[in-house]
């Protein structure tokens, strides 16, 4: 913050009158601090508790994951130095670093690793990680740095999950000694920043952890201002109250990008906007499902709502990830959609009626995208009854089979692994999609047990093509994240959209 602003001057004058220290001094010394305008608070400071993709960068500042991803999303060592997945994927041997300490000075060992990925889950604490690590039968501790995870069924994506949602090592001794409630009030991890202050729904103050085992963050103090309203985030960056912000409307990115002093970006990420579909009701008819898909002009949606930056997708994977099929295209063809509907005796004069659910405000332009799709469908002979659902109720509705034929949804997969894209979306035993057809379901379930990486990826590539050709899913767009920052504040861009406080630096 090199510019001396009018407000800073007024603050200085008033503070001087009050006999306080001059904020000018702190303003000029502020190249060792940065403020980020962030849209959401953490759900709680237990990083294993709830899977919240937007909170992942905040957790990654305070806690460490066993494995990490580089900016191109390649899996890299982190707390785990070496790992070996058994050929049958029934066990994984890991070797931890021996120079890692928690923020209270305690050494991180395999006891903490075992506690995080086995003991806590088995103790009955309601954690989202209970699902991702449900296959863990035991973790055999061989030394403070060596352990072997034993699985009750093949776990070929265990390494990927070590770098995914919720997989953060927490301190066994501290939690057991202080109790969970005290841990939530004063959490400690092994991450590059200590949590210095936390005010619910307002701000998170991070201070550099000087004994961090890895590269030290360049900025000593990072303040996360929780600003939920997108317009307020725009105003905050524009007025200099924050140095960087994310997830602001695309049109504002264009505008701010033209102002001097700001850098504004629209970054495609590993998040897919899709239509989840049911295999029954009016969508029991494959012709109707395929017609619904062919009738959607994805490029027009991208242009209208994401300034053309969101890549139209034909499969449930984003470009650059292992499951992506660059040569496969599911074309926009309203004539073909009409022909398919005609085969089932539907058309504009005799439309097929379906239900269509969407959230409103869960991800950028969700409701508007749904309304546009309703209009596109109407032209070919599909009459959709659009209903808005609360995201909090999604799983309950799905569990009770109360979601309609189509649901607009956004699916995040920071790992980029196809299991967590199509594997989860098409697995009838999982609660992440209303598709419950056994034909595709059996193909998915078989892939969950394939230990060989190349065979597994090839299997998912086949599955993705098959699922789209059968109308089991309708991928729409690759989601984007918008970032606006002061031009001299640099950060490392990750393919999954992470903006990590530890990568920030002033130039």
């Amino acid at each position: 913050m090199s510019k001396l602003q009018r407000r800073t001057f007024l603050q200085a004058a008033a503070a001087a009158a009050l006999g306080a220290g001059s904020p000018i001094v702190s303003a000029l010394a502020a190249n060792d601090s940065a403020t980020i305008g962030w849209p959401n608070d953490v759900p709680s400071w237990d990083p294993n508790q709830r899977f919240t993709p937007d909170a992942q960068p905040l957790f990654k500042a305070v806690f460490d994951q066993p494995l990490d991803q580089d900016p191109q999303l390649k899996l890299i060592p982190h707390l785990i130095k070496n790992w070996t997945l058994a050929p049958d994927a029934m066990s994984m041997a890991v070797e931890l670093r021996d120079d890692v300490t928690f923020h209270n000075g305690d050494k991180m060992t395999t006891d903490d690793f075992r506690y995080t990925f086995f003991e806590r889950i088995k103790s009955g604490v309601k954690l989202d990680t209970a699902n991702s690590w449900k296959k863990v039968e035991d973790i055999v501790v061989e030394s403070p740095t060596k352990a072997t995870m034993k699985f009750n069924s093949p776990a070929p994506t265990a390494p990927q999950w070590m770098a995914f949602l919720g997989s953060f090592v927490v301190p066994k001794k501290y939690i057991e000694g202080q109790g969970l409630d005290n841990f939530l009030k004063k959490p400690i991890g092994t991450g590059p920043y200590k949590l210095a202050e936390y005010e619910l729904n307002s701000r998170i103050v991070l201070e550099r952890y000087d004994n961090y085992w890895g590269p030290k963050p360049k900025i000593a103090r990072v303040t996360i201002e929780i600003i939920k309203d997108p317009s307020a985030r725009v105003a905050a960056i524009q007025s200099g109250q924050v140095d960087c912000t994310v997830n602001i409307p695309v049109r504002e990115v264009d505008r701010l990008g033209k102002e001097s002093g700001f850098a504004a970006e629209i970054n495609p990420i590993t998040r897919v906007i899709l239509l989840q579909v049911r295999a029954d009701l009016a969508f029991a008819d494959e012709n109707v499902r395929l017609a619904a898909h062919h009738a959607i002009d994805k490029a027009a949606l991208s242009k209208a709502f994401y300034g053309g930056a969101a890549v139209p997708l034909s499969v449930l994977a984003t470009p650059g990830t292992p499951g992506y099929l660059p040569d496969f295209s599911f074309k926009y063809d309203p004539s073909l959609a009409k022909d398919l509907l005609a085969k089932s005796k539907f058309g504009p004069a005799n439309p097929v009626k379906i239900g269509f659910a969407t959230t409103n405000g869960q991800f950028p332009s969700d409701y508007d995208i749904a309304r546009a799709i309703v209009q596109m469908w109407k032209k070919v002979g599909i009459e959709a009854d659009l209903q808005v659902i609360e995201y909090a109720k999604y799983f309950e509705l799905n569990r009770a089979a109360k979601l309609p034929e189509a649901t607009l949804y956004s699916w995040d997969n920071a790992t980029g692994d196809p299991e967590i894209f199509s594997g989860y979306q098409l697995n009838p035993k999982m609660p992440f999609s209303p598709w419950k057809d056994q034909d595709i379901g059996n193909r998915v379930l078989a892939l969950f047990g394939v230990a060989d990486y190349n065979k597994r990826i090839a299997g998912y590539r086949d599955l993705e093509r098959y699922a789209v050709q059968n109308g089991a899913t309708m991928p729409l767009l690759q989601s984007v994240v918008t970032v606006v920052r002061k031009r001299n504040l640099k950060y490392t861009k990750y393919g999954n959209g992470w903006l990590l406080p530890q990568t920030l630096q002033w130039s």
Partner: protein
Amino acid sequence: MIATVAKLIAFRLLAAVPILLAVSALLFCALRLLPVDPAAMSLPPTATIAEIDAQRHAMGLDRPLPEQYLIWLDAALHGNFGRSIALHSQAGSLVAATLPVTIELALAAMVIAGILGFGGGLLLFHLRGTVLETVADLGSILLLSIPEFLWGLILLFVFGVVLDLLPFTGQISPNLPLPDITGFLLIDSLLAGRPDVFFSALEHLILPAFALGLAFSPTIMRVLRSSLFDVYHEDYIQQARLRGVSERRILLRHALKNAVLPTLTLAGVQFGILFSGTLLIEVIYSYPGMGNLMVDAVRNADLPLIQAIGLTYCIVVLLINTLVDSLYVVLNPKLRTQ
């Protein structure tokens, strides 16, 4: 007078008990009728039907509604409002942490509304019969027609962005520490001997408090003016004039004292509305109060938290009304003898 006020407060507090019971029962039943399942929502998405049933049983949700209410009431009377589904903390602790922030904001807004309302009301009355009366009247109607969230956005844009005079995110500047003694930041900063924090907190309070106060002030203005009109038709005003008392003295010593009573009653009633106005204002200004918490709770269908916040709103409004009624007794000699 003290005995009368004390009697009134005691009576009001006693009357508050059945009101609170009724409100809590109504709130409890209304929330239970919502098509959401707190048991399912408190578990990970992958929970099985059997796990959800077990959780429902553990939470007592499979019991008859009156029994559920009595269990909840018993726990609430012991200070346990349940655990927030979304935030995984005690709902009571979350409310306790955020309530002082909202009270501080609402009181600041009330002070602003009072100053603007009384000042504006006197001005409107002063301009009666002049050519400027219509202009002033239209001005007050304009103020009245702008809701607080719109004021919030207008003030943010003008004073925060265009003029860059005041901060509009959070409660304090990022580089300052947050003292936590009573939860009231202005008081805490002084107790901690940090004038810089006090100044920063005050600076951050100005825009949200003005947004709320501006929306609330026209009601006070118009009621005060109309009360003054009524009072000026009373015989004692005419008699004062005949005695040669100056117009200024008539207004300030005789008329205003009586005209302020209905205004005060209205202010008490309106405080509840002002308090609920903090919901949107706190979100716009990222103010970490109970309103902000309530918006999240509603979005997440976090029933225990909604219930705790709803009941707290009710208690605050009842207390404010009791306070206003007590003031009414202090200011109105007639009521002291009844």
